[in-house]
């Protein structure tokens, strides 16, 4: 295993662990107000300090990790669930009207940045974590459709697929039994990258008020609250910012490491 993979997995695990533990235990109640102790910098009783309402920052970061992970994970799920079948279909019917329709549809969705989709959804249904998930999820669909189609196309030319055809298997069965397992590695790596982009997108959407709404803690929301207080309480902005950076960095390193580890050609070249 490469250094990237180990470091990335370690960083990501810390965040996931913090989120899981927050269901059972947090140092303080993340929503409990303690005005006399507001804006305290990191100290022995509050390891990461307190915010403008005296809430414990560590507890908020732990609970906020849940929001970030949940939104990004479900958004990747949406992208994979819709994008992979579309990509497989397009590749199996290469050059047909269906392929053309799927790919042009992809281009169209691609023209809507996730922020713009979020703006549209918010304009209709109002802001919230669910709408952030939908916006980021929709943005992920063409990403997975494209990468699936591209990888599947080259596999369709291979002899073992030809053999499966001769054996009488239909296109749907070949896609599911032979193509999908062979591109799974690629999709896992892309999933990691989209997951990290999802964390960034969720933070951005909550920051501008289009994501999770109070009292649900989210890292982006914490940064938005910190903005007017950054001059006298910089820890309010530094801590959620570092949480986002470490998570995204961890996932990206893990994605890079996984790609090298799962790609037999690179592995052989190294040994």
């Amino acid at each position, binding site marked *: 295993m490469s250094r990237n993979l180990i470091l990335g997995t370690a960083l990501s695990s810390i965040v996931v662990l913090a989120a899981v533990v927050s269901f059972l235990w947090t140092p303080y109640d993340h929503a409990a107000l303690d005005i006399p102790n507001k804006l305290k910098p990191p100290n022995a009783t509050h390891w990461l300090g307190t915010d403008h309402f005296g809430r414990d920052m560590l507890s908020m970061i732990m609970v906020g990790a849940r929001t970030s992970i949940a939104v990004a994970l479900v958004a990747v799920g949406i992208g994979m669930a819709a994008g992979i079948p579309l990509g497989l279909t397009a590749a199996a019917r290469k050059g047909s009207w269906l392929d053309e329709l799927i790919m042009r549809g992809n*281009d*169209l969705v691609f023209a809507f940045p996730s922020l713009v989709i979020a703006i549209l959804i918010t*304009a209709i249904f109002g802001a919230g974590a669910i709408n952030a998930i939908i916006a980021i999820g929709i943005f992920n669909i063409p990403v997975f459709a494209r990468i699936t189609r591209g990888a599947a196309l080259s596999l369709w030319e291979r002899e073992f697929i030809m053999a499966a055809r001769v054996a009488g298997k239909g296109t749907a069965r070949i896609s599911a039994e032979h193509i999908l397992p062979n591109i799974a590695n690629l999709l896992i790596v892309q999933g990691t990258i989209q997951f990290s982009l999802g964390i*960034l997108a969720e933070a951005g959407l909550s920051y501008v008020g289009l994501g999770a709404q109070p009292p649900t803690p989210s890292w982006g929301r914490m940064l938005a609250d910190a903005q007017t207080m950054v001059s006298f309480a910089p820890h309010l902005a530094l801590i959620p910012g570092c949480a986002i950076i470490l998570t995204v960095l961890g996932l990206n390193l893990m994605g890079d490491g996984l790609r090298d580890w799962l790609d037999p050609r690179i592995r052989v070249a190294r040994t």
Partner: protein
Amino acid sequence: MLRYALKRLLSLTLSLAIASLVIFAVIEVAPGDPASFMLGVNAQPDTLAALRAELGLDVPKTERYLTWVGGMLTGDFGTSYTYRTPVSQMIADRMWVSLPLALYALTLSTLIAFPAGIYAASRRGKPGDIAVMGATQLGVAVPNFWFAMMLVLIFAINLRWFNAGGFAGWDKGFGAAMQSLTLPAIALALPQAAILARVMRSALLDVLGEDFMRTARAKGLSHRQALWRHGLRNALIPVLTIIGLQFSFLLAGSIIIEQVFYLPGLGRLVFQAISSRDLIVVESVVMLLVFAVIMVNFVVDLAYAAVDPRLRSRT
């Protein structure tokens, strides 16, 4: 080439038509009537009807869609529900902040990424390369709005070199306006520069392994000369594509950065419009952003095909 361009133009028109249809349809299903929102719950039915007629809300949806699209083609985006001023005028005013900001950020990102990518590629595997790649890994992970807040903390609040927010306006002179856009542009540019530097490095490394590079070295050029004369020019093709794509990301990304710096650009316009249910402004700004993305992709495709003839036959 002409046939390829025409084919892409047809698909561009179709994409724009469908995008406009999707945006209009999405906004149309929005609950709440803008006229009743503006007049409040105690509005008289006849006043409401008069306002609906004035805003053009009483005609069938198909007709409203055609009026909206037809208007946009002639530069008429309709009238804002809340401000009662032409939407095109509002967009034009805000555009003078958002567009220069995106271009400024694009320039900065290119100026940072090119030397960084070239340096890393020419020192492949050495400490310099590892340092640059580590920095780009970090740059990609930093949320631009958080970086913006840190820039404000350091350069506006502590060092007082820049204003913490607001826009001086172009009438105060080019220097003053650019000064208010500098921190936002740096914040926007950094993550994009990190991506671009990585692309630049890998494109250069791909080219360095090519036969013509070996030929260039064999005929007596130094490593540096071969890199500048032959390597860079060939590596530019994928890099330019990414630069094109980044422009649309920067335009959309400026929506968030404008919030940090209180810049009166398209981003703030659209958020104000959402909160006041000024849907005609929302749909026009969204359409404009999508139009920009589709147009940039179109130009990039054409430029790519012009440089690389193989692509023309592929689609």
